[in-house]
């Protein structure tokens, strides 16, 4: 293997989401002469971004004053908030909690927002490189992070270079900013290597699945923001939905399930589809068409799960650190603020050192502290969670003590001795029929002749233990049907990995009960091609 070509920058940012782009933009605003690059594994900015999303505009006003005169393509001011408790056929309106009052906020497509931020960053001189995946960290001789190594392109499934082989370059920088989003694969490695989470609770997550629909004229009420909880979930499974009404007869509908669910047979994708068949939602969607669909894990741990966010030569921002505010159902404003804070920190001192203290002292973490006990309260079930949530909201989190959380993968109950609750689910008639029909709308694309990017560290466990203990939950929690148990040639069954379906959501890496699935980045440019998601 020949020596890799090297490019040098002052700051290299991994991931062009709201955190990464905000950091890059702010850096150039503060110090125009800094050499700043952002690399992004998606083929274009926004293609891997999926979110509700209702955003608080405050941080955007600070970063890009005047943005309201030239707003991103999907940007609808919120007019009305509704929270509903659903039963299979009925519904009850609940009072809107203060964290979900969205006056002054905007419903956007986060992907379109990032695609809109990108040229503004480039105009300031940021070098943006979509289509390039950072596959490894480059370490300096004294063990600090010294940049990243771009993944090689053109390697076959057998691991051998093909005719189109192109070696990835090394990008050297004194500061590396990890803004990979929830459960970023490099962030995961670095957290382990530097033991950044040793003083924190385990990080916890949810899976968010979303579909963008064009509905019959008149059905969408632009500016209406609806959230639901209750059916189709049971009282022990955390989660709920969002229905965000947009312009041009579009509705963004989505469903989130906490990945701390205990039922090994639980099927998150099916729960989402069931929700769409509630009379209130079915009426909105019938005779409509799906424009786009996809899924992504969401970080839920908040304050108690926050790792140390700095290490020699690098820092974590956005959801790579885990800054999303679960009761608000919002993380974008946190991501943008953390990107700006990191930029200000780097511009002042040119190193990562001291960033963690600054972050913990900022209103980003103060916001998380106030709501730290709300999500974990639901570990005791829906009703106790609601009561505690109301209490925490009323006291603004001032009641001392912090509820613990448990690692999601350890929450799955074994089949033996467990009885799943009655689901009371219905027959379906709305598209998509199943996960394969759904993944079509994610427009995900991977060259099939490349190494499988979902590494199973102990493959025998799948057939020898997991089938018996948990009935292979990966075949259910993956929203893209990547994992299937199929007939093996020599009797019995084997795990088949349809890696080309992957939408890069990271749920498998999180929820697999044995923690033997390791998600790594495939060839740059692969993965979903989300539009307006």
């Amino acid at each position, binding site marked *: 293997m020949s020596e890799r070509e090297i490019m040098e920058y002052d700051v290299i940012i991994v991931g062009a989401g709201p955190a990464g782009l905000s950091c890059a933009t702010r850096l150039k605003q503060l110090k125009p002469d800094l050499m700043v690059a952002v690399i992004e594994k998606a083929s274009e900015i926004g293609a891997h971004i999926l979110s509700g999303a209702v955003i608080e505009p405050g941080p955007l006003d600070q970063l890009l004053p005047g943005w309201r005169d030239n707003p991103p393509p*999907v940007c609808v001011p919120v007019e009305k908030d509704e929270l509903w408790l659903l039963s299979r056929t009925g519904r009850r309106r609940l009072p809107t909690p203060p964290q979900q009052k969205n006056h002054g906020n905007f419903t956007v*497509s986060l992907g379109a927002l990032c695609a809109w931020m990108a040229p503004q960053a480039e105009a300031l001189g940021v070098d943006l490189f979509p289509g390039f995946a950072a596959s490894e960290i480059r370490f300096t001789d004294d063990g600090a992070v010294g940049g990243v190594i771009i993944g090689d392109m053109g390697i076959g499934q057998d691991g051998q270079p093909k*005719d189109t082989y*192109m070696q990835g370059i090394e990008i050297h920088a004194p500061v590396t900013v990890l803004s990979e989003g929830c459960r970023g694969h490099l962030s995961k490695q670095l957290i382990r290597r530097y033991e950044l989470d040793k003083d924190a609770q385990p990080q916890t997550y949810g899976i968010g699945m979303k579909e963008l629909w064009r509905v019959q004229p008149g059905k969408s009420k632009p500016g209406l923001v609806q959230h639901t909880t209750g059916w189709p979930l049971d009282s022990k499974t955390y989660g709920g939905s969002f229905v965000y009404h947009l312009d041009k007869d579009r509705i963004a509908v989505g469903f989130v399930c906490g990945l701390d669910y205990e039922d090994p047979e639980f099927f998150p994708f099916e729960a989402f589809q069931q929700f769409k068949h509630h009379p209130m939602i079915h009426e909105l969607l019938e005779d409509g068409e799906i424009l786009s669909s996809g899924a992504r894990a969401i970080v839920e741990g908040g304050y108690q799960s926050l790792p140390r966010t700095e290490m020699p030569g690098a820092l974590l921002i956005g959801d790579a650190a885990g800054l999303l505010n679960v009761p608000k159902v919002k993380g974008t404003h946190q991501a943008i603020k953390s990107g700006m804070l990191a930029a200000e920190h780097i511009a002042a001192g040119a190193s990562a050192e001291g960033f963690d203290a600054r972050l913990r002292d900022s209103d980003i973490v103060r916001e998380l502290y106030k709501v730290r006990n709300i999500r974990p309260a639901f570990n005791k079930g829906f009703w106790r969670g609601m009561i505690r949530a109301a209490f925490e909201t009323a006291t603004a989190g001032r009641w001392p003590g912090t509820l613990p959380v448990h690692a999601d993968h350890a929450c799955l109950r074994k089949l033996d001795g467990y009885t799943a609750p009655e689901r009371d689910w219905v027959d379906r008639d709305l598209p998509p029929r199943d996960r394969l029909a759904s993944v079509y709308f994610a427009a995900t694309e991977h060259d099939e002749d490349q190494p499988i990017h979902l590494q199973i560290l102990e493959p025998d466990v799948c057939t020898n233990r997991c089938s018996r203990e948990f009935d292979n939950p990966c075949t259910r929690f993956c929203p893209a049907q990547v994992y299937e148990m199929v007939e093996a040639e020599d009797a019995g069954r084997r795990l088949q990995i349809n890696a080309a379906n992957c939408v890069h959501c990271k749920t498998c890496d999180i929820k697999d009960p044995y923690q033997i699935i390791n998600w790594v980045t495939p060839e740059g440019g692969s993965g979903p091609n989300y*539009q*307006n998601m």
Partner: protein
Amino acid sequence: MKILVGIKRVVDYNVRVRVLPDGSGVDKDGVKMSVNPFDEIALEEALRIKEAGNADEVIVVSVGGDECQQQLRTGLAMGADRAIQVQTGQSLQPLGVAQAFLKIIEREDPGLVIFGKQAIDDDNSQTGQMLAALWERPQATFASKLNIDGQVATVTREVDAGLETVEIDLPAVVTVDLRLNEPRFVKLPDIMKAKRKPLDVLPLDELGVAAESTLSVSHFAPPPQRGKGIMVEDAAQLVQELKNRGLL
């Protein structure tokens, strides 16, 4: 010799294309745009010819609005030496594009002009052929093999009956098919280098091309939805259902 490569900015092949509800066109809102895949193959071939020593300059040319500069920069990053944008806000028919290319040929005097066999948005497969006729030079289309030897090109064409090999005198027009080559990946440092390579903008009317459309598209519609099937119990019922539908 110089090689001109025509590239077109089209909707990316991964996009799930949708017809607008009023039938006036295709929904391109927020949709990913890329270099036409066959044009990438054409550019790859031009670069290989240059690397083999049979050409000294590869120029990528695109006809369209300023957005197509993004695709021209991709061409430069792949290895082209220069780029030319024939600037126009109108959507041109293949004949108009061919006329624009003829003017570029008059300026640049290339030995070879290569296009992709067709664009994946309109699937016309006309521009290369029309250009050759206007230029009064030979053409070899659907090339799956191309060999340059001095002033002669030997081209294997993929045709309905199989493979056909022709020899043509240069300068000529070649359009390329899928199996000609596999385009190279772009290297990050080359993207940086591409920013410094020359990209000239030539307004269409300055070239003296009258871009009038003789065709107008009246309506777009998606393919009809497949109707729901029914399950039949046995062969007798199948026969009955076929008879009911007048198929037997």
